[in-house]
């Protein structure tokens, strides 16, 4: 295939301008947040796809499972300090109660909000596959501007997910690992910008949608033969193989990263530089992310990442069968290409491992 055509296809697929049909195109899109299964994945953000997880984590890139020989059964709950608000809103969304949802959304005047929680159970096999079930995951990103008239921009999400991923490598080319993840997701969400008075006049005007979709996320990773343990990873996320229900505006996202590792105070430190084509990001500097994992203890690891206007830091540890995590995340939300106030969250995780 001629190079120009490949280039055109690449540009069309990942970089073409956002459609104008979606009035919230320049606001955070929760579909691309990638909650993951652990606090570590949340701290790493999209860099999770280029950085192998710590012993307590779960690799996001399915190709990384190819050489991951750990086995674990985990139950997990991850949330931040706004869990009360987000569970309230996702509850109203789930119960189809638009009036109460509007009331909850209109409370956060002039303060941008971004919050999420998830509960999950997963099993990772030493034979390079992982199956997980997230019965409930909720997220809210909202902002109310102009208290005189109250223009509300909101993305409220409640969903459940069943996923299976696995990875392998070729015997004659062990440096190359490939993998894929299948995700079945049932979502109910509201992604809408509206005036409070219009919603008061007719609460049913809220654009709530329900979707059931099957996604395929293929991944690849190539390890270089050097003292830095370098590797390059590439994953395509949100490739929709099938869906039913209401149409949603979303695009596949390409995640590319370069990772390396070193020993620091006799402990392993891994870091990566990552780039994402996530469509709700339009500043070039926000597309790049640096992330690192430092396995400070045999029973725990620190993780951190930063990109443009956001950064996160956390610790995931284990005590007997109990897993725990604490972290902090801070980001500047943007609306219509204008930066809003900084939104910071303290995140916690509690779980069991067998």
């Amino acid at each position, binding site marked *: 295939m*001629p*190079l*120009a*055509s490949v*280039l*055109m296809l690449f*540009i*069309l697929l990942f*970089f*073409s*301008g*956002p*459609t104008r049909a979606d009035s919230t195109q320049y606001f955070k899109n929760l579909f691309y947040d990638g909650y993951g299964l652990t606090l570590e994945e949340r701290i790493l953000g999209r860099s999770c796809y280029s950085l192998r997880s710590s012993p307590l984590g779960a690799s996001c890139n399915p190709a990384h499972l190819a050489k991951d020989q750990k086995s674990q059964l985990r139950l997990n709950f991850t949330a931040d300090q706004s869990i009360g608000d987000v569970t309230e809103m996702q509850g109203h969304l789930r119960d189809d109660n638009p*009036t109460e949802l*509007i*009331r909850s959304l*209109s409370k956060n*005047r*002039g303060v941008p909000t971004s919050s999420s929680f998830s509960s999950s159970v997963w099993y990772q096999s030493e034979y390079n596959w992982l199956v997980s079930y997230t019965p409930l995951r909720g997220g809210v990103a909202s902002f*109310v*501007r*102009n*208290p*005189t*008239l*109250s*223009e509300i921009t909101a993305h409220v999400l409640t969903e459940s997910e069943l996923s299976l991923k696995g990875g392998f490598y070729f015997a004659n080319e062990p440096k190359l690992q490939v993998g894929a993840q299948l995700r079945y997701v049932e979502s109910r969400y509201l992604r809408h910008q509206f*005036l*409070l*008075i*219009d*919603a*008061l*006049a*007719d*609460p*049913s*005007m809220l654009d709530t949608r329900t979707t059931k979709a099957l996604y395929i996320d293929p991944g690849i990773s190539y390890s270089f033969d050097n003292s830095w343990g370098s590797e390059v990873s590439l994953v395509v996320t949100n490739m929709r193989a099938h869906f039913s229900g209401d149409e949603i505006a979303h695009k596949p996202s390409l995640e590319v990263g370069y990772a390396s590792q070193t020993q620091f105070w006799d402990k392993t430190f891994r870091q990566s530089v990552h780039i994402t084509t996530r469509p709700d990001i339009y500043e070039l500097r926000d597309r790049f992310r640096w992330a690192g994992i430092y396995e400070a203890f045999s029973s725990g690891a620190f993780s951190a990442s930063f990109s443009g206007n956001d950064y996160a830091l956390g610790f995931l540890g284990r005590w007997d069968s109990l897993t725990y995590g604490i972290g902090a995340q801070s980001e500047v939300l943007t609306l*219509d290409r204008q930066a809003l106030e900084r939104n910071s969250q303290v995140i916690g995780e509690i779980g069991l491992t067998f």
Partner: protein
Amino acid sequence: MLIKKSKSLLLALSFLSFGGCIPKTDKIERSDYSTATQMMEEGQYSSAIHIMEGRLKHAPFDQKARLLLAAAYAGRAGVHITDFFDFAQELDKVTKLSQKYGPESSLGVIQNLKSRTQNRDQKNALELLEGIYNALFQLNNFLRAFELVPSLKNAASVQDLNAAIHILDGDSKLTGGSALYRGLLRVVLLKHDTFSANLFKSLGECQINTQAVEQDLRYIQHQTIRILSDLYIGSGSEAKKAQTQKQLNSIDEAFQKALDLTATLTPVNHQIDISQVTHQLGGQCP
């Protein structure tokens, strides 16, 4: 081959730039709205008014500009839509309540007096009082929710609010949220006007001035009907529309009956003595 490659590249670049292409007029409009909204967020309502007045002058049919301009005036008067959320919900509740409970219980004293009075003038006065109480009971549903409505601080605020309503009146096809917004602004004005009305003052004393009462009744009736009409136009659901229409008819009927009764009375100096009722209700006369 070179030409084919150039064409492909050109096509790719066109698609790349296409999504970012916004017509110039759209950019100007969005800029005006964004700037005015920013001004309002910072409390610079006068600046927002200036921008939107300019916009409306060039585009008199721009509904968004009209709404923003009205909101800027309302903001300067200290009225914010988020203050209304609980009122709007309360109004919904009391609308349903008023259909369930009539005014009979609160009129027991007056009806009792009426049955014992032989004096024709006194009977007429009591009938007028009964009519007024009936009308006010209907209005009481609003009054109960009034504590949730913001109060206007001064004459300048009243002027700004009147300006906001007048701007919205400029669109004869106002519907949906904008009509609801106008109705809610009128509620603020009604609260302000009602509490300074003579009607309530005289009911607290022992005499009614029938001329003043008639004036106040007409004004409150007119304002309440306009508010309910806005709520009707602004309602999204047919069930809500039907409910609002029922209440509108009920209030209109009650006020009209009270007004008809004032027309039948011609007391001396337009004064009616209601000290008997005041005493029965536990009040005292000077």
